[in-house]
């Protein structure tokens, strides 16, 4: 086991949560890296789905976009986008959806739409894309996020996607039958919602991380589990797999092109 970065730990901790039986709706960035590390290590039969319609992909390189060519070339099948959203996502066939966040609250509600007022935003962010329905149609939701007080906030500016709302049985009260956020993996810790209140609770600290470090980078008062665990550090295989994947990716996407 060598040195590793907090982001590498986050990605690998997320990868470990996945099994060969999972069907994952993968987003770009950390989720894509985590899912492919899982596929290349302990979960070779995991099914990865990107919302471009590619089902069962096995890219050699991480895609820059969710519609890169290699996703299609290695997929079991590539379907139209309406079919993707109707038969596969809405049809309840995805076990795990990954979401990132610009702002996250302690109940797993996510904002990637605007900072400030919706109609007069301070910052116009990209918006939801698939997130509003990923959040409610997938069996459960895993969130990955680098901790910062700017992003882990007491109150988000906009509900791009619904987590546990105000907590408790808020999902059920809206008629949502899926579990919602069941896992938050940051660069510092692993969090799970309290079974009753649904407030995210730290259940495992990554190596070298203290409670204070978690609290200092989080905008709400952090709850820690009584039986707080320590996240095992990345194994040699995990780290090598992730770094090789990222090296292949960097080589493939290149930097600035000559001309044009």
């Amino acid at each position, binding site marked *: 086991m060598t040195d590793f970065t907090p982001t590498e730990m986050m990605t690998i901790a997320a990868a470990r949560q996945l099994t060969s039986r999972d069907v994952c709706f993968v987003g770009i960035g950390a989720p894509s890296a985590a899912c492919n590390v899982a596929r290349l290590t302990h979960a070779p039969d995991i099914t990865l789905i990107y919302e471009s319609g590619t089902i069962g992909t096995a890219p050699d390189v991480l895609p820059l976009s*969710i*519609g890169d060519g290699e996703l299609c070339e290695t997929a079991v099948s590539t379907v139209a*986008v309406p079919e993707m959203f109707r038969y596969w996502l809405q049809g309840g066939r995805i076990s795990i959806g990954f979401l990132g966040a610009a702002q996250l609250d302690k109940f797993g509600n996510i904002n990637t739409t605007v900072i400030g007022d919706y109609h007069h935003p301070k910052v116009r*962010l990209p918006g939801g*894309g698939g997130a509003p329905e990923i959040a409610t149609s997938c069996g459960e939701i895993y969130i990955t996020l680098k901790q910062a007080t700017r992003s882990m906030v007491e109150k988000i500016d906009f509900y791009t996607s619904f987590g546990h709302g105000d907590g408790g049985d808020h999902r059920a009260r809206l008629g949502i039958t899926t579990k919602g956020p069941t896992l938050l993996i940051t660069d510092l810790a692993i969090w799970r919602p309290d079974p009753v209140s649904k407030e995210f609770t730290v259940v495992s600290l990554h190596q070298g991380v203290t409670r204070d470090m978690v609290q200092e980078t989080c905008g709400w008062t952090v709850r820690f589990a009584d039986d707080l665990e320590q996240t095992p550090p990345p194994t040699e295989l995990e780290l090598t797999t992730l770094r090789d994947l990222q090296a292949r990716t960097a080589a493939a996407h290149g930097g600035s092109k000559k001309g044009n």
Partner: protein
Amino acid sequence: MAQFQSLADAVRDNLKHGDTVAFEGFTHLIPHAAAHEAIRQGITDLTLIRMTPDIVYDQMIGMGLAKKVVFSYAGNPGVGLLRRMRDAIENQYPRAIETVEHSHAAMANAYEAGAAGLPVAVFRGYKGAGLKAVNPDIKSVICPFTGEELAAIPAHRADVTFIHAQKANAKGDVLIEGIIGVQKEAALAAKRVVVTVEEVVPDFKDLHPNLCILPHWTVSAIAVVPGGAHPSYTHGYYARDNATYLDWDKISADRELFTAWMQEHVLDATPEVFAERVKGL
């Protein structure tokens, strides 16, 4: 009935000031050459529909062609924000634009409903989501069997849809393969359809029977533009130019740099330059 035309003629005959238009292609097959032609022709007051506005609409918005944008993800995929679109929303530069924001699922369903000739798309969506409160086009219907409240939004019915595809045959049937996105739906939902293609082949005799094909009688115009999706890509022809997507973040961050880039690479260019751009990809 499909007419084979130059890109300039195809755009001139089918896209009018004030039209509602979709340039579709999900990451793959984005019709950049057609959008550049629209920019060169200075067609304005457009209502632009697209799931991910992407660079293609960032450019059109930055050049002031759009009065309204209907969309679901205003990002530069895998890179970051769309800076020209942000500038229009945050600072009304170069003009104010109206936005109608949906989720991907909603947009895909709205195209599907448009292709299906329905006035409304019905799906399970927006539960607990904030867009319901800011987009008056998001309504609901009640399932008459279960009582479940389902989301309902208007079907997309563009005046014209532009897409890029691999091939047409001599009759004008159009083949789309790989990541097929929402192009078939976007095309069938529109009154007119303009397709740029990499090449024309005599016939489609040896193709698999279940491929995504738009029969010639569903297409208004076809223009042959090799490389016409760049910096997006065409499966089987050339790869996505990810470096250009990364570069766009810098170009679009600065109004003057953007203007100079558009002058050189769009206004002073022709559709023929696209073939050059995809060499080596």
